[in-house]
């Protein structure tokens, strides 16, 4: 497929072979399995992930040390954290659908957390931030060479916490504490409750709640991850995986050899790569239009374009 999917060495549909892990996972358990395997093999000595209120209660020392009063973390608001064990990984698994500033831990990971080989999961923009930090390490001393595995996740747009709060409690009329899982797929925003209730909102409803910065993003499938993954393109319970860099190739090959994943050729599954391309092109086209509109936003005045 075209440039909308970025450069990749291979693409496959995959699912973790670990049934226990799949219970906590969003889709195929790719990110959690990759990090669990990488931790076991010493490929990474810790990973930066988006953890939760429950995680922070159990492992406060692993969370970002800032002005966050851990008693005040709301349900479903992610807190960047470092995980070093499979148990911690599982406690932080699952998509949160709102902003988790994972890159904020990138330097501290090599300092007080003592990591030499960092794993990090992030959205496409966070992958861009990580690679910019490797090429232009302005405030990131001794960080670049320590990034051992960067896993990108597909992303159409992200939301501030307050947006998800309003969507769930207002539009879906559910309490945040009773949400078991959230999902975006098949044109809808799904909210699954702990008692088995399911509410779906048409995606159209969510548009006004998106983070504005997302509207100039030209990357749907995390072009800059070592490995990128997301649910789109694969069947329920599976994930589409792009293996992109030399590091990604090496880690994926080792994981496959160790039986961490079962796979199906992406050409054989429904809805397949065509849907990924379709959505990627939609995002890029829509956001290129936003970028162009920024150039004539005022009267004879433009908004700033960050892209050189």
């Amino acid at each position, binding site marked *: 497929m075209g440039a909308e999917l970025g450069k990749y060495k291979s693409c496959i549909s995959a699912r973790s072979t670990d049934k226990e892990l799949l219970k906590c996972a969003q889709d195929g358990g790719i990110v959690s399995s990759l990090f669990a395997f990488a931790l076991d093999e010493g490929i990474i000595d810790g990973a930066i992930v988006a953890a939760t209120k429950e995680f922070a209660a159990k492992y406060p020392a692993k969370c970002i040390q800032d002005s966050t009063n851990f008693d005040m973390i709301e349900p479903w608001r992610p807190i960047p954290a470092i995980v070093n064990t499979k148990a911690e990984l599982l406690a932080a698994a699952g998509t949160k659908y709102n902003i988790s*500033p994972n890159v904020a831990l990138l330097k501290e990971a090599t300092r007080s957390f003592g990591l030499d080989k960092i794993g990090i999961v992030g959205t496409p923009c966070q992958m861009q931030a990580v690679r910019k*930090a490797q090429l232009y390490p302005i405030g*990131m001393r001794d960080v670049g060479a320590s990034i051992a595995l960067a896993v990108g996740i597909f992303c159409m747009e992200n939301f*501030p916490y307050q947006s998800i709060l309003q969507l769930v409690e207002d539009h879906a009329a559910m309490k945040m504490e009773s949400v078991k899982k959230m999902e975006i797929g098949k044109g809808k925003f799904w909210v699954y409750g702990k008692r088995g209730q399911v509410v779906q909102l048409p995606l159209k409803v969510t548009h006004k709640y998106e983070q*504005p910065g997302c509207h100039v993003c030209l990357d749907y499938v995390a072009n800059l991850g070592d490995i990128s993954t997301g649910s789109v393109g694969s069947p329920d319970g599976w994930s589409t995986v792009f293996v992109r860099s030399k590091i990604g190739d090496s880690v994926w090959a080792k994981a496959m050899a160790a039986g961490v994943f079962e796979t199906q050729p992406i050409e054989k599954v429904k809805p397949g790569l065509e849907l990924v391309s379709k959505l990627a092109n939609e995002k890029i086209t829509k956001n290129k239009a936003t970028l162009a509109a920024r150039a004539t936003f005022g009267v004879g005045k433009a908004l700033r374009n960050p892209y050189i």
Partner: protein
Amino acid sequence: MADKITLGYTHLSGCTGCTVALADNYAGLLTLLDKYVDLKYMPTLADARHIQKVDVSFVEGSVCIDDKLAVAEIKETREKSAIVVALGGCACYGNITRFSRGGQQNQPAHESYLPIGDLIKVDVYIPGCAPTPQMIRNVAVMAYLLLKGTKEQKDLATAFLTPLMKATESTSACYCDLMTKVINQGLCIGCGSCAAACPVNAITMEYGKPQGERDLCIKCGACYNQCPRSWFSFDVVENYEAINEAIMAALQ
């Protein structure tokens, strides 16, 4: 690729942290000096007495405009260098020297400090307080490729250095840049790069957006420049793997 570029290093009102950052490339510095760079003038590391005519000058520190010698030296640096690189926050943006107001022994009247770009045309910025050894290394390798490389290498180096050249359009920096140039412009994506880059931990992320403790901010410019939405070149960053490998190979 055989001949070296000549380098000068002018030390103005800086703390020598930028010098230490350069030296903290350890063996990498020795390789740079062996293969690519002929160090002509550098207080602390080289034994020449006067600013020399060179291809590239690094300038550390801001200019005390109350100090005639400092003013003369920055002008002489500009005159004698094909390329002037403002090294570190003080040279680029003033940094902590912005907070000077004189009254210190033994020069109580040395009160006014300006980033070098307010007195001369600067070609490239290396922001940071201190700039990182890796950033200095990357710029040094790219500067070499720009001056001595093949057409392809010159193109790569130009692409790599372009945002650092454009950065010279501004001579002041502050946490507030994140507000005025990123968040207010609808560009912030909440990644947290700024919080990680800040040398004084003045930035935390609150509900996915940077919160700066402005009393802690030293106005170094690291946060804004590290932000992926201050400037971002797809051509360069998408080739991160090849560029990282090229830089490592150059330092073998």
